[in-house]
């Protein structure tokens, strides 16, 4: 009798567990593929398309359950791809090229920024920078080790300038030296920090301008979507669906008609940026994601990648050529 009771109890527990499994809302989750997408930086206007694709169901429609994870200075999407913590990520071109030079097996799926947002802000009333030679004798902020250092050195070299003709000052996230005018030319992401800084200076009745290296021939690729070669080989269909959904999300996010919804999606993660500032940031981002309406969002600018590799090789940042173009996959989702 006791044995029968125990058997019945076990049977009841098994049935309950089974029912619980059926009831779990993850029923839907199990039907979708689990994907982790690691961004390069914190969520802001530069990640509008990524966030929008997630919040508006672009991934779900492709049967993908994508967890968009914010990046940061201590995060490295390429490392996470290799360690299996993420399946897709965002990395800058210099990160990709460095990783390839050290044997990482990484593939570029799409280039999000057609224009590199990394530019230098300065007070327009103090001086004008219309050509690299105008930088002579001025103090220029650079983040030593960052890609702004690489870009500035490439710019000076391409203009035939010696580095002794300028004063390079190491900077970090604190803008005090710029506000105090100790470092009058400061590196910023034009579409995010650039808007915040120009608003602050405008409040003090100061005008600002931006110095864009791309306008002077230095085309250094910024954020791109990457995955591992293993993922590419083993799950090409997932890669295709992910890229398709992501780029569709970006396209929708960049439509002015969707601005309010995009801001709503961003505000969930970025509560510190006011809506008017976000609106200006989105407007600036649009010009960088799709600088030419004839070129689809996500298009990989092969020439710019080649130039980025050449710049890095010339500065000794990679030991030798890696033929980055062989690792670009322009057709993965377009």
């Amino acid at each position, binding site marked *: 009798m006791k044995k029968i009771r125990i058997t019945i109890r076990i049977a009841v527990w098994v049935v309950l567990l089974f029912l619980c499994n059926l009831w779990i809302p993850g029923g839907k989750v199990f039907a979708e593929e689990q994907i982790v997408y690691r961004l390069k930086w914190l969520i802001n206007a530069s990640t509008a398309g990524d966030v929008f694709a997630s919040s508006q169901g672009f991934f779900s429609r492709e049967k993908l359950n994508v967890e968009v994870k914010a990046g940061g200075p201590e995060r490295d999407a390429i*490392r996470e791809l290799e360690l299996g913590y993420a399946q897709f990520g965002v990395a800058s071109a210099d990160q990709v090229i460095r*990783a390839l030079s*050290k044997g990482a097996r990484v593939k570029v799926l799409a280039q999000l920024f057609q224009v590199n947002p990394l530019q230098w802000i300065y007070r327009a009333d103090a001086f004008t920078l219309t050509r690299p030679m105008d930088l002579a004798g001025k103090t220029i902020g650079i983040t*030593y*080790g960052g890609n702004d250092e690489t870009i500035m050195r490439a710019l000076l070299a391409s203009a035939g300038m010696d580095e002794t003709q300028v004063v390079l000052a190491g900077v970090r996230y604190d803008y*005090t030296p710029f506000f105090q005018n100790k470092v009058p030319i400061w590196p910023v992401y034009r579409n995010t920090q650039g808007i915040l800084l120009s608003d602050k200076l405008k409040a003090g009745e100061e005008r600002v301008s931006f110095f864009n290296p791309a306008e002077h021939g230095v085309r250094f690729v910024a954020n791109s979507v990457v995955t591992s070669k293993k993922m590419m080989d083993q799950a090409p269909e997932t890669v295709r669906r992910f890229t398709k959904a992501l780029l569709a999300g970006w396209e929708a996010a960049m439509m002015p008609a969707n601005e309010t919804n995009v801001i709503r999606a961003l505000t969930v993660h970025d509560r510190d940026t006011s809506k008017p500032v976000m609106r200006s940031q989105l407007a600036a981002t649009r010009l960088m994601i799709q600088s030419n309406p004839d070129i689809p969002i996500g298009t990989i600018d092969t020439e710019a990648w080649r130039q980025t590799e050449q710049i890095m090789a010339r500065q000794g940042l990679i030991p030798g050529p890696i033929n980055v173009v062989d690792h670009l996959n322009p057709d993965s989702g377009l």
Partner: protein
Amino acid sequence: MLHRRIYQFFIVYFLGIGLLFGIKLVLGLSDYVIPGPSNLWNTATAEWYRYLGDVLNTFTVAVVGQVLSIIIALTVGVVGRKATWFGSFIKVAAYNVQAYPIVAIAPILFILLGDGYLTRLFIAAMICYFPLLLSVIGIMGEPVADIEHFYRITGRLRWQLEVKIRAFENLYKLTTVISGSATLAMAGTIVAEFIAANAGIGYSIRIALYQSDLSKILVALFMIGITLSFYQGVLEMLGTSLKKSWAGK
């Protein structure tokens, strides 16, 4: 004592490196994630001289910062040892300052001191002083009843004498804490350089992180470890000889 410190460091460091190489081998990771032995060796031969200079730069700031923090901790500990309003105010202020994350205070320090030597020194001292302060407060707040009683009864117990008695009776504790705080001073300086300076090994580590170059970081860690082991070994030797000389008197 010195050589023991150094070979113990070698054991710890190479065990750690061995573990990393093991993970790399088992998971088949590229040099980008974990550098291989040849990559690490090449980086070490290329960078050791520059990193040695950086570590020595950091080390000098750490030593000055440690001395500064000893002075601060002793002052606060002596002033705060009494159960008066001022004593408790000093203690609360000291505890509060410690509770603030240094990354939040750094921007204020930039404005006040710029992002150079003084900021590094200040942050190093701030990180180092608190454990010292706790020990000093613990020691100075605890009366040595047997000895102090005599001077109190005879009316000769001034605050200087009280401090001397308590320090002398707890000399072993004090020297151990001061020797141990060397690690914190070095760590504090590296943190300061990481967030608020353009020099030192902490700054070089930050650049290596920007370049996603773990081999540089591992070389930097080796230089930091060996310098710190040497310094702590020297401090311990000094402590031992000091005790011996006092015991001989």
